[in-house]
């Protein structure tokens, strides 16, 4: 017999998108909220000092038990399945998308317009920034539009970044400080950043991680958490398209179903597991999966690609002052009219590439003790390295797809997701122009400092992935509406990364959070 858990709203997944929805609903409604997370808990804030020390010393994962053996797919996916999701590990870089991202078809004749504009999303961007606590510097308003100031002043530029900004100013490209979900002032009971420089695991709590929000809600009695419980199917009420229940299994009782019943279900399981669960929940009325009457679930999987490089600069920089801060420019994300489509950001960091101590000189001679030091000093006295990287958008295509892989199954026998990311013709046709332009820009920047490019690289990893349940006004080409409500099931919402139309040319998580908050506004209506 299954255990039955009832609530008004059942949120499936316990990552950052879920945290945003749960917080907003808890504050603005009386609804009872259940969060069901497949994974357990990992290192608490108190334990992070110790796990950080081991990460530094031995390269160990600072978040033990943050995944579920056997629950994994193929393709670009996060390994983390844990309360907090991938945003336990994240760096916390939180740029907004640019207004152009939402209108690329109208403005440039490529890709797809979103059903919403930047202005529609702007208040939710602000709200997401306030919930997580974002420290940022207002860039030039035409490239960094916002209706209110950043919640906190920016992280300070290190001495190194100050020198690098002098250089980029001379090159005539506006750069400003990367916005971060890291505190420069005490924020919601969390500490100020102490420049420990291991932001993958922050020992002070200055970096936002979603567990902080869940713990606050749990302490206030505003949500119930069912951890280590994997939802395996969403089930419809008989004779209706409404979702009646979600059936899950606790890791310690794999034969004992737990049935979650709710008025509203929110699928917040991230870019890979959300489409996966919908496909897995196929039934006689929706034989291709829930919310999939038009065969759009799992399609238009997307992300951005990048080109990057290392620049040798004729200046002395001191590595390690604050390498986890960086300079950002969105100048080319809002490029104005274009002959050929290319929009991208530029990010700059200090780097130690080519400036590390080494065992052998260029001629192969082994270096010993003082010689290693002398060689190291000679290579760092008056030269330094900067890392440069540009994300550019990959134009989504329906062939870029998540499917069920019957050859790979979890402990319950469920087929696991397989994601075959594909770049369509439009992106591939533009790729040579894109690379030529980007590498030209990198080179120009290097020369403006009297420096030179040391190396360049082009990556086809689909970064900050999303899609699979894209939003749209037309049910024949989308899975959810602008609020994340599935076209097929009035009480089933999908939030965050899966719902994006395109992934722009900026880190995506802030946008996933803003979209989740926008969905929460609709969900709150009941």
């Amino acid at each position, binding site marked *: 017999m299954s255990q039955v858990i009832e609530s008004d709203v059942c949120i499936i997944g316990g990552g950052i998108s879920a945290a945003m929805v749960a917080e907003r609903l808890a504050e603005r409604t009386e609804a009872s909220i259940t969060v069901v997370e497949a994974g357990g808990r990992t290192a608490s804030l108190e334990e992070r000092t110790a796990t950080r020390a081991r990460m530094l010393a031995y390269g160990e994962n600072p978040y033990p038990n943050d995944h579920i053996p056997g629950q994994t797919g193929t393709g670009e996916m996060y390994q983390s399945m844990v309360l907090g999701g991938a945003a336990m590990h994240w760096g916390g870089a939180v740029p907004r998308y640019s207004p152009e991202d939402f209108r690329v078809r109208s403005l440039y004749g490529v890709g797809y317009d979103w059903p919403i504009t930047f202005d529609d999303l702007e208040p939710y961007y602000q709200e997401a920034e306030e919930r997580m606590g974002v420290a940022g510097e207002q860039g030039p308003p035409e490239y960094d539009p916002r209706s209110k100031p950043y919640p906190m002043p920016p992280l300070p530029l*290190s001495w190194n970044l100050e020198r690098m900004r002098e250089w980029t100013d001379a090159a005539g490209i506006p750069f400003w400080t990367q916005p971060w979900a890291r505190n420069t002032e005490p924020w919601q009971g969390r500490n100020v950043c102490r420049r420990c420089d291991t932001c993958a695991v922050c020992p002070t709590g200055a970096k936002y991680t979603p567990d902080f929000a869940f713990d606050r809600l749990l302490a206030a009695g505003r949500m119930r958490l069912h951890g280590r419980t994997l939802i395996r199917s969403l089930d419809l009420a008989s004779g209706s398209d409404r979702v009646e229940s979600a059936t899950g299994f606790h890791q310690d009782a794999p034969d004992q179903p737990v049935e979650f019943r709710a008025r509203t279900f929110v699928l917040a399981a991230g870019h890979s597991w959300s489409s996966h669960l919908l496909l897995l929940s196929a039934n006689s009325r929706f034989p291709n999966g829930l919310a999939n009457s038009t065969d759009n679930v799992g399609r238009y999987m997307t992300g951005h690609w990048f080109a990057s490089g290392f620049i040798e600069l004729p200046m002395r920089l001191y590595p390690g002052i604050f390498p986890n801060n960086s300079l950002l420019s969105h100048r080319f994300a809002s490029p104005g009219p274009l002959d050929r489509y290319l929009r991208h950001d530029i990010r700059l960091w200090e780097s130690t590439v080519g400036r590390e*101590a080494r065992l052998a000189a260029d001629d192969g001679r082994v270096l010993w003790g003082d010689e*290693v*030091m002398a060689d190291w000093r000679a290579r760092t006295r008056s030269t330094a390295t900067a890392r440069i990287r540009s994300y550019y958008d990959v134009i989504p295509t329906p062939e870029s797809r998540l499917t069920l892989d019957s050859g790979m199954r979890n402990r319950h026998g469920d087929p696991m997701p397989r994601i075959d990311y594909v770049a369509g013709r439009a992106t591939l046709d533009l790729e040579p122009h894109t690379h030529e332009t980007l590498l030209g820009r990198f080179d120009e920047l290097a020369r403006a400092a009297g420096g030179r490019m040391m190396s360049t690289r082009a990556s086809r990893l689909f970064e900050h992935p999303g899609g699979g349940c894209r939003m749209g006004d037309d049910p024949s080409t989308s899975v959810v509406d602008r609020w994340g409500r599935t076209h097929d099931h009035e009480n089933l919402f999908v939030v965050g990364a899966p719902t994006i139309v395109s992934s722009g040319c900026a880190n995506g998580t802030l946008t996933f959070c803003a979209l989740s908050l926008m969905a929460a506004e609709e969900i709150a209506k009941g």
Partner: protein
Amino acid sequence: MAESRRTFLKQSAATVAVVSLPGCAPTAAERPDALVPATLRAVGEAVLPEELGADGRERSVAAFERWSEGLEPVAEMAHPYLVPETVFTGPDPRPGWAAQLSGLDIESGKRFGTSFAEVGVPERRRILEPHVRRAGPDFGRPENAAHIAVALAAHFFASPIATDLCYGRAIAKQQCRGLAGAGDEPAPLPGAAS
């Protein structure tokens, strides 16, 4: 100066040997993967900068010993970005490193008729050179080092102390320092070459 440091190191190695005389349970120094302190310190004299001085080198070798004691073989590593696979560190390098240390003694005995710790630094470097050459030119992470000499040097040169010495500045990388002062040029180390 170098001579007196060697004498000091020999004495401290002898002290360690006395302290670790057999008891009922094997002490850390008696385990098969134990790194013989005298030989390890002799390696330290060959690969660590002399400018550290005897005390500084002793601290660096002791820090390496503590680090190696805490090493956990086949530990889960931080996940690679967007790769749904668990990756692990390698198997325990310490038995191999311990064997290398005794190998250094054997080789030194065959070449020079005495232990590795007894020969001069140039002789030690002659013995170590093929191993170090094979590993270079980059140090890599110490736990991945194929030879104990490279592991010891890699451990030191990756440390905040080494960076500060290289630049002659008090940078204190990866130590929680507060946001104030981030924009300042790091202060010179007293008496440091820069």
